[in-house]
């Protein structure tokens, strides 16, 4: 820890800011006046997607396998929750049960899929996960009898508050209406995110976490030291699937529906990969920085710039000429290009990310290709 001399770290400051944000309504109101967007309503989605990014980081960052189908598990989680909770089905499960079931089903899919995946080399692994993600998306869209296709399953009911929280929220005057009071989802999703971060933090320091890093750095050496590569990869893949399924479940509950199946397509997987690559593969804080930048852009900045652009379209003069191309590139219309540029530029100039862990930086800048990048040419 280089900054051990500071009594508080950036990490703690960020957590404190996230916790305090809803308690100071003036900030949210100020941002609303500035942009006409309620940040508080968008933040829970970003927290949920941050869980998804951390899930992807388990496979890509810790274990060093390129996973291009995380959106598939996200979708499975969302649809299991949808099926278990919407009135069209007879189950009517409670929130906690639905989240648990989604996590378990996604884990089961992860374990089943990882069986054939374990012996594949890097690029084939990437393609099979890609194919899996797309197969899930198309299946969701085509199995209309079960998933309602593009119409999506809805309404997914909001969670019921556990006894002390209901009274607490009534007491502070927030009420218990999930639709109008953003703070309920805000704290719920933040709690899940912090839980995930704590879990991963402990895992990184456990023997399992260290074994993953050993595997990433040199699979052959790790295997020679007695690590069971297949079992470790399976664990990483299953954990990632579980967290992604949990995130999917929360996503469906937050949206109140399972969303168009397109929400679980390849773009979602690559957006998540962008967060990892921009922030720093394998480094939890780096990933969260990437999430803040990429998803902040995707969910807040780009829509705001859409508004700006629409307003500019009606104006004329120098303002339009100067700002229009810029806002076009940065708005939703230029989103794919931004993500593409991020991937290319980071790979070119800083493959270890903005906030790398020291180990990853060393791996990326070794003389010869890092070991997890097999196949090497003979």
């Amino acid at each position, binding site marked *: 820890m280089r900054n051990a001399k500071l009594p508080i770290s950036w990490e703690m400051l960020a957590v404190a800011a996230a916790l305090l944000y809803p308690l100071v309504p003036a900030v949210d109101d100020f941002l609303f006046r500035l942009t006409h967007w309620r940040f508080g309503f968008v933040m829970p989605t970003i927290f949920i997607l941050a869980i998804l990014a951390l899930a992807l980081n388990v496979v890509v960052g810790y274990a060093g396998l*390129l996973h291009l189908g995380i959106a598939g598990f996200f979708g499975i989680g969302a649809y299991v929750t949808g099926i278990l909770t919407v009135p069209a089905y007879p189950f009517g499960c409670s929130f906690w049960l639905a989240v648990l079931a989604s996590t378990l089903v996604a884990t089961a899919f992860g374990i089943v899929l990882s069986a*054939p*995946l374990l012996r*594949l*080399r*890097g*690029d*084939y692994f*990437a*393609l*099979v996960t890609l*194919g*899996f993600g*797309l*197969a899930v998306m*198309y*299946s969701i*869209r*085509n199995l209309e009898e079960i998933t309602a296709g593009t119409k999506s399953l809805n309404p997914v009911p909001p969670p019921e508050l556990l006894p002390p929280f209901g009274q607490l929220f009534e007491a502070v005057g927030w009420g218990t209406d999930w639709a109008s009071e953003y703070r309920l989802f805000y704290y719920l999703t933040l709690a899940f995110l912090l839980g995930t971060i704590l879990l991963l933090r402990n895992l990184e320091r456990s023997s399992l976490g260290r074994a993953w890093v050993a595997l990433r750095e040199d699979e*052959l050496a790790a295997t020679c030291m007695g690590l069971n590569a297949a079992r470790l990869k399976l664990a990483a893949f299953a954990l990632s699937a579980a967290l992604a399924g949990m995130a999917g479940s929360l996503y469906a509950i937050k949206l109140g529906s399972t969303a168009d199946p397109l929400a679980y397509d*390849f773009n979602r997987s*690559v957006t998540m*990969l962008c967060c990892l*690559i921009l922030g720093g593969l394998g480094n939890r804080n780096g990933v969260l920085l990437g999430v803040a930048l990429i998803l902040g852009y995707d969910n807040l900045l780009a829509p705001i710039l859409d508004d700006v652009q629409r307003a500019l379209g009606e104006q004329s003069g120098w303002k339009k000429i100067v700002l229009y191309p810029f806002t076009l590139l940065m708005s939703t*219309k*230029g*989103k*794919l*290009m931004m*993500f*593409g*540029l*991020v*991937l*290319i530029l980071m*790979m*070119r100039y800083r*493959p270890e990310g903005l906030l790398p862990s020291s180990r990853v930086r060393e791996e990326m800048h070794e003389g010869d*290709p*890092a070991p*997890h*990048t*097999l*196949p*090497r*040419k*003979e």
Partner: protein
Amino acid sequence: MATVLLADSTWVLFVNICLNGLTTGFLYALIALGYTMVYGIVELINFAHGDLFMLGCFFAWSLVSAAAVATGSTGALLLLLAILLLTPLFCAAINWSVDRVIYRPRRSAPKLNLLVSAIGVSFIFMNIGQLWGGAQDLDFPRLVEDRNLLPADSGLQFSLIDAIVISVTVPTMIGLAIFVKLTPLGKAMRAVAQNPMAAQLMGINTNRVISATFLIGGALAGVGSVVYVLKIPTINWAMGFQNGLYAFTSAVLGGIGNIPGAVLGAILIGMVYSLGSWYDARWATTLVFLILIVILVFRPAGILGTHTREKV
């Protein structure tokens, strides 16, 4: 009598599906060749190749829209020849530039880094397609009057456009085979594919060979786009991703890096897709992805590829 009729119509249907599958397969083959050649030489899954094909379609669309000629006229035929010449040049130029600017400086980087860069290029191409043609489907103007070449009472379908597709693709592929087999550059390509280090030691300029591969792959994708818009006259920005994956699946099915394998794989995938679309169009795509997964998992070397043990 009734059973004979039934058997007869089933036979006609089957032949029609196969004919359609064959032309679709030749189409995928043109794109698959670009994947397989690049993979054979730099071991990069060129993710952006499908989107390059999409840009080729948009380029041809822009040319044809600008010219505005009547269907079936002499002008239209000349225009068809012109786009058949210009679109491959356009795609080849883009593919070469991408290699030059993005892949070449990172040639020694880990392979997965290059794959991620290729995904980035693919996204940029998609975005260009979005800005170029908008979010909706575009109709490609008909250049050739389509008609069935086979006698109508046989019930078989083989249209003029199918004939054009085959008469463009087959000579292109034969030309490619001759090029790779007989010319010095083709020999150099095979040498680099086999062992880049040894090829370099023998005095082959590997960078030049790789550039040439990207040029040829891009040109083939360009031919593919022209053929595609003739056969399926609807284009949109997302078409490259899907068709690219079909083509990639074809390349893997035939044995990636193997040129005849890519053609064989593409014809098989064309048949599967055609058969799947007849059964239920919605599931045809999923079927192709399942084939991709199964092949990669159980026989990564493909049908024609030799099974090489991974060296550590």
